[in-house]
């Protein structure tokens, strides 16, 4: 009897081991472009972000699954009431990949480099809340405080993006604290990461992480070729899989296709409201009219956009925040349902009328405008054509123009010679403070009318006030209240017409153990240190 119990206990203990007692192996997946930099403080493009995530050690980490902040290189932290100071207690005994000890000096050095005025990156700018220098203070053994000249909202979560660099290592550029280290970079071809032999983290059994020996990142912009290589077993993961390839994979290998649910990404349409834009005054008058914008929103069939442009792997967007952002999403908002009759009623309020199937404004101008979007995105091109037909039903003539990215950026952010634009938000920050530059009327990313000297409309004045209000307090509920109101104003005024929220689709080979794709970037390898590889299963694909 005792022997049976012991045997059972042994079996249970064995089954609780992580899903590959096999360690080792090389994980392979693709980057969609060339990484622009390996300097973790300068990172801005997605390939570089992925490499930073895999190699950089951070003080705190937003758990991509729970969206909660977790200790990493810091065992604990405390943010002051005025959000101007944060104190970290560092984990002792940690080494850089080259054996150099990790200490408060490295945190201080990192902050000093980050706050250098000549460094321009979104990581750095997130901390620049006001004029004045950022300083650090060592307040005890392994305790360091970082002091800011002005309050920084969501201060602790921002450190998820700050990879600590070494102050004393002779190999400053290559010494890292993350699970992997860059071993080889072949420009235009691939990046090879090896496991960091000095990585501090261990699993529950006390074994050193990561389990994998290496990760090979091939540079492959073409998604069809990436998909082909995955089906042939040459790749183990695909992040951000498009809907068509997802369905293709699901039909042949449903275990490999993962839908983590609605992502934070959104697609939206907006009209040019810049007063000095080189567009006819009568068109500017249309675009500046709430009735016009709301009518467009009502005329668009979001269900069809989600079903046809994204093969059903998207859902109509209710507002600027995706339901995937659990805390900040305003659950009171619902997406406009397609209602051409209601759209026409709205337009009639502004004097628009139909004549022989053509919509005319009150001065007799036929309603015709163009939508610009970036070339190369099949789903965006399809959305534009679907909207073209939706709006034709209410007598509007829409021209779809796809442009290369630099030309598009020049039009929408510098010359403002466009009428309507269709783009999307991707890799969105959970915290709305990361979107200050979108909602503040004086900001450069206030897409429909940026860099205003003073708000052009009362509702933009109100949005400015609410955004500053939510940034001035650290109470999450108060912040949410303010930001909920911002969302309601945005939906009511429709300066941006939010169309769909895409699902987070990915592909993971069955040879990979412990994979748990999530919504937040990086979807499939957020827990790269715990991924395992069953080489025999890969060989049999």
């Amino acid at each position, binding site marked *: 009897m005792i022997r049976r119990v012991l045997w059972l206990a042994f079996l249970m203990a064995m089954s609780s081991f992580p899903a590959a007692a096999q360690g080792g192996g090389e994980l392979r997946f693709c980057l969609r472009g060339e990484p622009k930099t390996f300097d973790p403080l300068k990172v801005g493009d997605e390939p570089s972000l992925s490499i930073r995530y895999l190699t950089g050690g951070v003080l705190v980490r937003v758990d991509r699954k729970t969206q909660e902040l977790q200790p990493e290189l810091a065992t604990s932290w405390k943010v002051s009431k005025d959000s101007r100071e944060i104190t970290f207690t560092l984990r002792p005994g940690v080494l850089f990949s080259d054996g150099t000890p990790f200490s408060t000096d490295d945190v201080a050095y990192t902050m000093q480099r980050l706050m250098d005025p000549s460094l321009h990156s979104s990581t750095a700018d997130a901390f620049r809340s006001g004029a004045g220098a950022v300083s650090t203070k060592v307040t005890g053994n392994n305790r360091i405080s970082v002091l800011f000249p002005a309050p920084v909202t969501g201060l602790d979560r921002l450190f998820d993006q700050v990879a600590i660099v070494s102050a004393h290592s002779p190999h400053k550029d290559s010494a890292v604290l993350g699970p992997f280290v860059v071993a080889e970079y072949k420009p*235009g071809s691939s990046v090879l990461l090896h496991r960091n032999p000095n990585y501090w983290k261990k699993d529950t059994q006390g074994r050193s992480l990561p389990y994998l020996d290496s990760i090979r990142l091939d540079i492959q912009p073409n998604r069809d070729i990436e998909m082909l290589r995955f089906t042939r077993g040459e790749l183990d993961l695909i992040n951000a899989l498009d809907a068509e390839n997802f369905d293709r994979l699901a039909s042949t290998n449903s275990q490999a296709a993962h839908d983590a649910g609605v992502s934070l990404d959104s697609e939206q349409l907006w009209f040019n409201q810049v007063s000095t834009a080189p567009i006819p005054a009568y068109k500017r008058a249309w675009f500046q009219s709430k009735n016009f914008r709301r009518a467009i929103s009502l005329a668009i069939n979001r269900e069809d956009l989600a079903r046809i442009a994204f093969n059903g792997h998207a859902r109509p967007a209710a507002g600027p925040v995706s339901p995937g952002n659990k805390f900040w999403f305003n659950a009171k908002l619902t997406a406009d349902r397609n209602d051409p009759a209601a759209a026409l009623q709205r337009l009639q309020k502004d004097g628009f009328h139909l004549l022989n199937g053509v919509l005319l404004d009150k001065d007799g101008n036929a309603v015709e405008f163009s939508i610009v979007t970036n070339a190369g995105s099949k789903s965006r091109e399809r959305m534009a054509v679907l909207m073209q037909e939706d709006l034709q039903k209410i007598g509007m003539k829409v021209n779809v123009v796809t442009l290369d990215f630099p030309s598009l950026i*020049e039009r929408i952010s510098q010359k403002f010679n466009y009428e309507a634009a269709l783009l999307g938000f991707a890799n969105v920050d959970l915290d709305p403070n*990361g979107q200050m530059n979108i909602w503040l009327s004086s900001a450069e990313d206030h897409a429909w009318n940026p860099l205003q000297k003073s708000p052009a409309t009362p509702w933009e004045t109100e949005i400015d006030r609410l955004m500053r209000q939510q940034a001035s307090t650290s109470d999450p509920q108060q912040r949410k209240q303010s930001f909920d109101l911002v969302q309601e104003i945005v939906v009511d005024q429709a300066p941006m017409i939010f169309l769909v929220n895409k699902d987070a689709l990915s592909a993971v080979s069955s040879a990979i153990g412990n994979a748990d794709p999530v919504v937040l970037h990086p979807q499939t390898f957020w827990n790269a240190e715990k991924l395992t590889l069953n080489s025999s299963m890969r060989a049999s694909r």
Partner: protein
Amino acid sequence: MLATALVAGLLAATLVRFAPGFDADESALDPGLRQESIQALQQERSGEKHIFAFYRSYLRNALHGDLGSSRSLEQPVRSLLHDRWRVTAHLVVVGLFLAWTLALGLALSSALLQWSPYELLGTTLSGTALCIPAGVFALLSVLLRIPGEAVVACIVYPKIHRYTRNLVTRIYHQPYILSARSRGVNRARILLLHVLPMIGPQLAALAGISVGLAVGATVPVESLLGLPGLGQLAWQAALARDLPLLVSLTLAITLVTLLANCFGDVIAEAIRTNEA
């Protein structure tokens, strides 16, 4: 030749400088960046705004081996070119060899065989190859595990084939050739000793052109197949409006094109002189 290359570099720089999107950067759409940062990033391009000053400075530095720094890839242009030229050279040389072998083979064998169905097959093959987009060729090459050199060959050969086939056929119907054929002279002998030399200058010119065609084909092939060559670099540079990189690539491509065409002209002239 050098003057042509320098003019090409200047014209390329001008085209890039005044094309839309030159001042635009993806950073403008990053909501995490402040206006000051975006402006600072744009300021980094200030040296490129005055095109003649830029080009003068570029050439002066180039004489010392410094081709400037790629803004989009944040690496010295010289090391980028150095790391990648071999891949492109291999694609071009092998691709051209395959293309010419196929094109000449089809054209000459068609003239030898004098058989309509074969001629029709050759026409249909090269017509089909011309109609298939480069992206499809690239995908097929991955699907069937065919090397990129074969894709370059498939893109280039139909153009060579058509010219060659027409030139061969034209000469084959000249009176003196018809006379030789009627006297029973061996067809292969006619082709090699009488037809080919007559079209030699045109073939030499075509050979020069084909180098340019092959170099052009490397842009979609390398970009789609993820091959780290100059073609892929050129496409990335074009999308990023990376002026130092684009000027360097244009100068390199111009010199290669000029050399190839010059070589073709020399051979053509030699053949003409010989015939005379």
